[in-house]
């Protein structure tokens, strides 16, 4: 049994921590894990991704196009950018709130993500859209997005563990003062 998961978004959205928590949750069930992610430019507004693989018989942390079981996208255009990696019948979770790159502002373009969401709706059968901004407001922190997305990812049933397993490793990973907010975000009903 192998799972290929792709998490994508823009630097600063908390993608690396999301990836770490999935990996730690898998390890807690004795499932082998490999991952690879963009590093370095992450704080500078670039596209960020994390490849995650769970299961036996893995050689490398990356996987080719059309093999991801689940795409967790923190930004609409980044979801479209990485969509070629999704296998036929794979699942996509996408945050609908767009992040405008500097180049778009300079060219006077008003990218707002709607075109991307329309494209996703057309191409993906199993698509779940999350209004990340509204979810963060409900949780009460603009930094809750990654836990909201992770909670929804667990709900897809693709990952070989449940929300309790994630909550347990999260509590060991984040600072105590953020535990309550993160639990709320993980378990948010959307």
């Amino acid at each position, binding site marked *: 049994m192998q799972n290929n998961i792709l998490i994508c978004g823009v630097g600063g959205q908390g993608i690396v921590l999301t990836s770490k928590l999935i990996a730690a949750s898998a390890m807690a069930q004795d499932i082998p894990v490999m991952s690879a992610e963009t590093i370095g430019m992450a704080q500078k507004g670039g596209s960020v991704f994390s490849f995650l693989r769970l299961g036996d018989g893995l*050689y490398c942390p990356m996987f080719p196009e059309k093999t991801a079981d689940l795409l967790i996208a923190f930004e609409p255009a980044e979801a479209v950018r990485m969509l070629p990696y999704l296998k036929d019948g794979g699942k996509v979770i996408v945050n609908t709130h767009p992040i405008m790159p500097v180049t778009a502002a300079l060219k006077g373009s008003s990218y707002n993500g709607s075109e991307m969401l329309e494209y996703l709706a057309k191409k993906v059968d199993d698509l779940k859209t999350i209004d990340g901004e509204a979810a963060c407001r409900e949780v009460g922190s603009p930094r809750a997005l990654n836990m909201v997305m992770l909670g929804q990812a667990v709900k897809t049933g693709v990952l070989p563990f449940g929300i309790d397993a994630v909550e347990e490793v999260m509590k060991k990973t984040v600072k105590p003062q953020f535990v309550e907010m993160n639990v709320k975000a993980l378990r948010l009903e959307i």
Partner: protein
Amino acid sequence: MHKEFLMGNAAIARGAIAAGLNVISGYPGTPSTEVLETTAKCNDGSLYVEWSVNEKAALELGAGAAYSGARTMVTMKQVGLNVASDPLMSLAYIGVKGGMVIMVADDPGPISSQTEQDTRKFAEFSKLPCFDPSSVQEAYDMIQKAFEYSEEYHTPVLFRPTTRVCHGYASIEVKDEDECKKNAPEGFVRDPSKWVIFPRLSFAAHGAIEKRNVCLSKVFSESGLNPVTANGGRRGIATHGISYTYTMEAVKALGVSPEIFKVGTPFPFPEEAAVEFLTANGGLEEVLCIEELDPVIERGLIFVCGKYGLKTKIIGKLTGHIPPAGENTCASVKRAVSQFMGVELTAEEKAEDVPPLPVRPPVLCAGCPHRASFFAVKQAMKGKKSVFCGDIGCYTLGNAMPLDMVDTCLCMGAGVNITQGIGRIEPDTNCFAFVGDSTFFASAITGVINAVYNQADMTLVVLDNSTTAMTGHQPHPGTGRTMMGQVVDKVSIEAVLRGIGVKTVETVDPLKLDAAVDCVKRVSAEKGVKAIIFKSPCAVLIKGKAPAVIDSGKCINCKKCINSLGCPGLVIKDGKAAIEASLCTGCGLCSQVCPVNAIGGGENAE
């Protein structure tokens, strides 16, 4: 043994510690940086860990410690080895007493480097043994073997992972603390016939090295580091590093079974293992070499075929079957393997109706003081003939529109000398060199001495954000912190410049735009070598102020803020300039650029 989820670089660090590491030195550079950082985090007080001022200093310090019997590791990226190549070449002749591993991370792509140079070739040139791991687990295991070989053969060895191994993560088996080796260094034993390099010693050492490498080629062939997987066919694949894992994935997915030769020690090339591979099953007909960077294995196999009179046809980069430049990927290797093994791949359908995607090139962060520094120089020099030589660091991103303030960038510390060269040909040009604080200490000081001594006419601009920002905020001599956790006296850039003989040195906060522009105008008008230090901390390291606010009643929608600064904190919403509050640090630069004072909030707003 127990399991841990580790980054490749952390596994290398932990493996070195398990091998009895005593001393580690290095200079930050992607993708090598986390090795030294991990050892500092794991330091129980028994290790000496330092960020040296540059790679040459790091290697020389490591040599001294290894002369004294310490197990030593020196870390750097591939271009860092160019800086350290002077001591490296000589140290190969002198040798070491304690095990010494020089960890050099290569960067196929390149993803964040100036060159796609291959450290395996550097190993051949310097005649030093080289280890090339293919996975996180192998990196952990192999670095321990590298220490053993180094100590047994009294030679420094090169250990060269690539980006995907350095930055990949995996759950791996690591040793428990009581399984780790401890090494008690004997200390330096005086012996000038051994530690002082002279032509006579070099002649003798050269002969000994060549003999040793013939022996090591045999030893490596039998070491298990260069395994041949027999599958019974007449077609073979020779590969290495991360490309080996792509190959195994491809072979599994395609259901094919070529003979596979994985080269873990590219130098000295394991000839006997290669012969075993090439002569399997009555002799292989054809071998595909799947490599990144240079065709090292490919040339090695062609050499072996010639030397042993073998008829196998060797293909790869030299025959156009593998791209000459850039990274391999799962997909590119699968394509190459399927072609080589005669398996049809289902044609990839490319979606054609994809909406145009926003490009996200890396840009200076919102609130980055470098943006203000570049903008101030640009304003001050408007209409004047000028050249702006850049250097290596976050500030190379000053080349992007709309700042467009980097005319040259070559290698660490080069800008200060390049600008002098341009000035010799164009004396009427205002010659500027921009250099960051860490790069200044690493390799720009000699350039300034050169300028002062040779009577150059130039303005040095030191962008001092008090950290090594590009590689993740490592300390350097100007920060007053060390990797051993000490708080020490800072080395003052201004005092260094004055000591060299630069008479005009002005320090100014670039976020006070008017003062900064005045300073540039005043200083650059002087003759000779003069310097401006733009001092303001890296925006990532300080707690930002309240975000700026645009008064929509005052805003005339000229978009000057956006078009002159290119700050990620400034966006367009509903056709008008707006502040992205989640990014804005309130640095106040845009409020000083706005012609109608429509931007308030932020630090410097009135």
